[in-house]
């Protein structure tokens, strides 16, 4: 088992390295001159050159890459070109809202989709199954921002149950923190649950046809035990895989949901940085977000070990 975890950990390293290279190349090899953009539209030649010098763009590319990587390794992401603040500080302030939103919405979507998927498979072709499948199809096609605005209009304006937006830090007031996150998390969680619901239903349908499920029923076990202990446990693997896939979707959704609900998270930071052409912030934030994504997938890989004993012994 330790070997398996170590192997997974080592496999994540090249991916991270490539993310670093990709992010770095996007900024440096793309057409357009970041120094000129940074210096502003009416800067003259000298100002652009000075900006280039200040940004370290005159160093050879490998040196620049080394500076970037070695900075990141010790948590130094440089300074924001626009405001001069430390990028690491800017990101640290924004991590909590983004992570909270992503985690709560992921939890909501798992709480919606797994029971829905299991029950839909159990009662295949029933009205319940039809409704679940229609909702799942809807979840695929609904744009996050549209759902967000509809929810705000319904549950914050017409029926003032929830705040229409904003964010309260966990340390300030925990109740308000959860209260402010419920509506945006539901929006994201509903849209995210589509894929997980469909996967749960599909794998459950296959597993429910297996002999051991028939045997379990034949020996008189209750349906709950059959469904959860015998069927779902065996259907869990692909479901976990899909949850891993959908993390990327959640992070993409967070960027938009933060805009709709005026939540000061990493997504807002990037969108603001882009409108200010603050490439220092852009490259660091993308790198951090990608790192979070790789880490979460690593955790999911490790979860397999607990769900599927075969992995524990095989490796």
């Amino acid at each position, binding site marked *: 088992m330790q070997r398996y975890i170590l192997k997974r950990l080592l496999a994540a390293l090249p991916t991270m390295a490539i993310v670093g290279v990709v992010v770095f190349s996007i900024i440096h090899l793309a057409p357009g001159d970041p120094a000129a953009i940074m210096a502003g539209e009416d800067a003259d030649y000298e100002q652009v050159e000075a900006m280039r010098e200040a940004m370290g763009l005159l160093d050879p590319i490998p040196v620049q890459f080394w500076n970037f990587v070695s900075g990141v390794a010790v948590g130094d992401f440089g300074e924001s070109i626009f405001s001069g603040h430390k990028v690491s500080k800017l990101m640290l302030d924004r991590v909590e809202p983004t992570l909270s939103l992503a985690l709560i919405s992921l939890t909501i979507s798992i709480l919606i989709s797994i029971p829905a998927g299991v029950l839909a498979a159990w009662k295949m072709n029933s009205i319940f199954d039809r409704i679940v499948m229609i909702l799942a199809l809807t979840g695929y096609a609904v744009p996050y*921002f549209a759902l967000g605005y509809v929810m705000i209009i319904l549950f914050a304006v017409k029926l003032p149950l929830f705040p229409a937006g904003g964010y309260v830090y966990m340390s300030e007031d925990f109740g308000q923190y959860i209260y402010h996150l419920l509506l945006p998390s539901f929006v994201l969680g509903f849209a995210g649950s589509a894929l997980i619901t469909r996967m749960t239903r599909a794998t459950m349908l296959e597993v429910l046809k297996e002999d051991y499920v028939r045997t379990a029923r034949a020996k008189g076990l209750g349906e709950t035990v059959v469904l959860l202990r015998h069927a779902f446990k065996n259907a869990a693997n692909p479901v976990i895989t899909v949850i891993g896939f959908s993390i990327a979707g959640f992070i993409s959704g967070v960027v938009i949901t933060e805009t709709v609900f005026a939540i000061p998270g990493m997504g807002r930071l990037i969108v603001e940085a882009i409108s200010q052409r603050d490439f220092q912030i852009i490259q660091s934030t993308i790198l951090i977000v990608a790192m979070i994504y790789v880490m979460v997938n690593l955790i999911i890989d490790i979860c397999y070990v607990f769900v599927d004993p075969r992995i524990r012994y095989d490796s």
Partner: protein
Amino acid sequence: MSTKSESQDIQFQGLRPKIPTYIAMANALWRNPNMLIGLIIILLVAIVALLAPLLIALDILEDPFIYDPLNRLLPPGRSEEGKFYLFGTGPLGRDIFSIVIYGSRVSLFVGLSVAIISAITGSFIGIVAGYFSRVDDIIMRFMDGIMAIPGILLAIVLMAILGPRIENVIFALTVVDSPRTSRIVRSVVLTIKESQYVDAARAFGATNSRILMRHIAPNTFAPVIVQATFLFASAILAEASLSFLGAGVPPDIPTWGNIIGEGRIYFISNSNIVILPSIGLFLLALAINMFGDGLRDSLDPKLRGKI
């Protein structure tokens, strides 16, 4: 899975007449009402999109490019001047109904282009990686790296660097979508590569390029087509999201995402600006997904209910 059905096809080729694809598709449409409804909606939107310039030229529709500050933020209905605005007007006085009609052009164009280009590049990368094991690791690690960056973020960054143009939106979304397609194609290629008929072809002295073109590429067609339909829908949503965030199509071009982004700050007082174009977006994406589901069920029954 495709390996098995393919080898069965070969065994039975002499015994059972093969049903042409288009008849199989027509059958699938007939048996699957969801797929038919999806197709009808897509075709309707396509017809409207094609006719939009004509409707504007004939003065049936307002010109969605014209700003009319005097008539900004009107609710749906007739204005004081007696002009009829079915969906009301936006913050710059543009007629929202015309934008919804005209915006479908951009959505369909971007969605189709991204789907087709990603399907082609993704297939190419996937076939090369799957068939030539020497480059497999390098290519797929690189694809993993791109996939680790959440799609919308990667697209935003690319747009920030390339600048707001429709071509750039298509390019950015293709970069985002190709790796996923390549992974699907690669997994298909890996199973087909080991099949007996490929061994047989090789034993007969077929070259790599012949095996790739005659035996492997055709088998990736079904999953790629299915994937392309889903990409079509997701690219339409992604384009709207980019425009909504102000990192997509230039703001003067009337698109669904642009008008929703424009109306964002007015969504409580003038919710029509955000909601009505969103419904168009939702219906089109839903229709494409319904069509895609049906297509997948008929082309690849083993995947029913998944993806």
